[in-house]
C-alpha cells in the first residue's frame, strides 16, 4: 500500500463510519439484526475461544514452570506470572488476533458478497442507509459481546493451567492456586475487557470497511477478506502498544 493509498483508505474509512454510526431508522429491524449478529459473531466464537484459551493457558503454565525453576524464586510465582500474562495480554490481544481471523473474514466476505451481487445497491435504492443497516448491528453486537468472550478466555486459560498442575504436579495445585490469588489487582480485568472491546470495534469496523468497498467479482471478495485479516492484526498489535503505554505505563 502506498502512502497516498493509505491516507485514502483512512479517509474513506472515516467517511464510512460517519454513515455507520447513526441512529438506525427502524429500531425493530435493528434489534432483530443485533441479536442475530450477536449469535453469529459472538456465541459462535465461544468454542474457538474456549479451546484455544484452555491449551494456551496450559502451555503458558508449563513453560513458566520449566523456565523459572530456580531456587531463588518461590514456586507460587508460576501462578502469579501466568495469571498476569493471561489477564493482561493473552485474553485480550492474542484472542482478538484469532477473532480477527474468524470474525473479520466472516464480516468482510459477507458484506463483500452483498456488494458484488448488488444487494447493497438494492438497499441504497430503497432509501435505506445501507452502511448503517448492514454494519451498525455487527459492530454493536460484537463489541457488546466481547466482555463475555474475554471472561470465558480468562477462565479457560487459568483453568488450563490448573489442569496441567493436576497432571504434572509442578507446581502443585495448591501452590498454583495460591499464586493465582496473590497480588491480584481487579483493575487488570477491567483493563483487559476495555481493551478487547476496543479491539472488537477495530475488527468489526475495519473488516466491514474492506467488505463494503469491494469492487469486482468473487476473487476481489476473497482478497478483501484476506486484506482485512492482515490489516486488523497489524492494527490490533499497534493499538495494544499505545493502549498499554497510556493506561499502565
Amino acid at each position: 500500500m502506498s502512502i497516498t493509498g493509505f491516507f485514502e483508505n483512512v479517509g474513506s474509512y472515516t467517511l464510512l463510519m460517519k454513515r455507520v454510526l447513526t441512529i438506525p431508522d427502524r429500531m425493530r429491524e435493528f434489534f432483530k439484526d443485533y441479536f442475530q449478529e450477536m449469535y453469529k459473531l459472538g456465541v459462535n466464537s465461544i468454542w474457538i475461544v474456549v479451546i484455544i484459551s484452555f491449551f494456551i493457558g496450559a502451555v503458558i503454565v508449563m513453560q513458566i514452570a520449566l523456565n523459572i525453576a530456580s531456587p531463588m524464586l518461590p514456586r507460587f510465582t508460576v501462578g502469579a506470572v501466568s495469571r498476569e500474562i493471561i489477564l493482561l495480554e493473552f485474553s485480550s490481544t492474542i484472542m482478538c488476533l484469532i477473532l480477527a481471523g474468524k470474525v473479520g473474514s466472516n464480516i468482510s466476505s459477507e458484506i463483500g458478497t452483498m456488494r458484488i451481487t448488488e444487494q447493497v445497491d438494492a438497499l441504497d435504492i430503497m432509501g435505506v442507509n445501507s452502511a448503517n443497516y448492514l454494519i451498525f448491528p455487527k459492530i454493536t453486537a460484537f463489541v457488546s459481546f466481547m466482555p463475555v468472550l474475554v471472561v470465558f478466555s480468562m477462565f479457560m486459560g487459568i483453568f488450563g493451567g490448573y489442569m496441567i498442575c493436576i497432571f504434572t504436579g509442578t507446581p502443585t495445585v495448591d501452590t498454583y492456586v495460591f499464586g493465582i490469588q496473590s497480588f491480584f489487582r481487579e483493575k487488570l480485568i477491567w483493563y483487559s475487557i476495555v481493551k478487547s472491546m476496543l479491539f472488537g470495534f477495530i475488527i468489526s469496523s475495519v473488516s466491514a470497511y474492506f467488505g463494503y468497498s469491494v469492487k469486482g467479482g468473487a476473487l476481489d471478495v476473497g482478497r478483501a477478506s484476506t486484506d482485512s485479516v492482515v490489516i486488523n492484526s497489524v492494527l490490533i498489535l499497534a493499538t495494544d502498544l499505545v493502549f498499554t503505554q497510556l493506561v499502565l505505563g
Partner: protein
Amino acid sequence: MIVVKNLIKEFEGRMVLDDISTTFDRGAVNMIIGKSGSGKTVFLKCLIGLIKPSSGAILYDNENFLSMKSKEVKQLRRYMGVLFQGSALFDSKTVLENVMFPLDMFSRKNKRERQKRAEFCLERVNLSDAIDLYPSEISGGMMKRAAIARAIALNPKYLFCDEPNSGLDPKTAQLIDELIYDITKDFNMTTVVVSHDMNSVMNIGDHVIFFNEGIKEWDGTKSEVMNSDNQALNDFVFASDLFKKIKEADEIIAEKEEERVK
C-alpha cells in the same frame, strides 16, 4: 414521467454517455437497447442515482433529481422500484421476508397488513408457493419474479429493470417480459427496461431507444425499429438470423402483394 436532458458521464476522461436527451412517459414500457458496453447500465444507474453523472439533468415529474437534497432523494426513492441484473435478493432472508423488507422499513402498517401486501405482490408474480424458500433454493426465473414482487411492494411510480431476462430460457424470459408489461399498465408506472434482447423489444417495447457507444443513435416505436434506415440500428437488430429472415419474409410478401395488385 422522466425527462433526461443532455446527460453526460465520463469515466477518467472516457465518454461513456455522450449528451443523452430523452423522455420516458407514464404507463409505457421504455426500452433501452444496444450492444454490450454501450453504456446502458451506466445510464440506468445515473437515472436511479447510483452513479453521479458528469453533467445534465434528470427530471422526475419536473423535479430535478440531481439537485435534490438527500432528504428529498430519500423521499423520491420510496417511489422507485428497481430490478437488478442479478436480482439482488437478500441471501439471508426468505422470499417472503425479501418482499416484506421495503414494507418493514417504510410502511406504517401493522405486521399482518404488511404480510398481506407482500403475499399479494407474490401472488401477482405467481410465486405464492415459494414464499418460505431462500433465494439459493429457487431458480433464476423465480428469483427475478421475487425481485419484481419486492420492487412493486411499495407501489412505485417508477420501475427500472436491468436486463430482466438475461440468463433465462426463452419461455421464462417471455413470462418475465409480459409480467413487466402488465404491471406497468396495471399500476400506470413509468417503466425503463434495459435489454439487448430483440424478442423483448418486439414483445413489450412501447418506446425504444437505441444506444451505440454512449450515443443515443435512434429513438422510436417498436414498429419503426424493423424499418429504420439507421445503419447501426439495422446492424444490431438484424444481427440475429431470425430477425433477418422475418424481414426478408416481409419483403417477399410485400413484393407478392405488389405483383398481385398489378
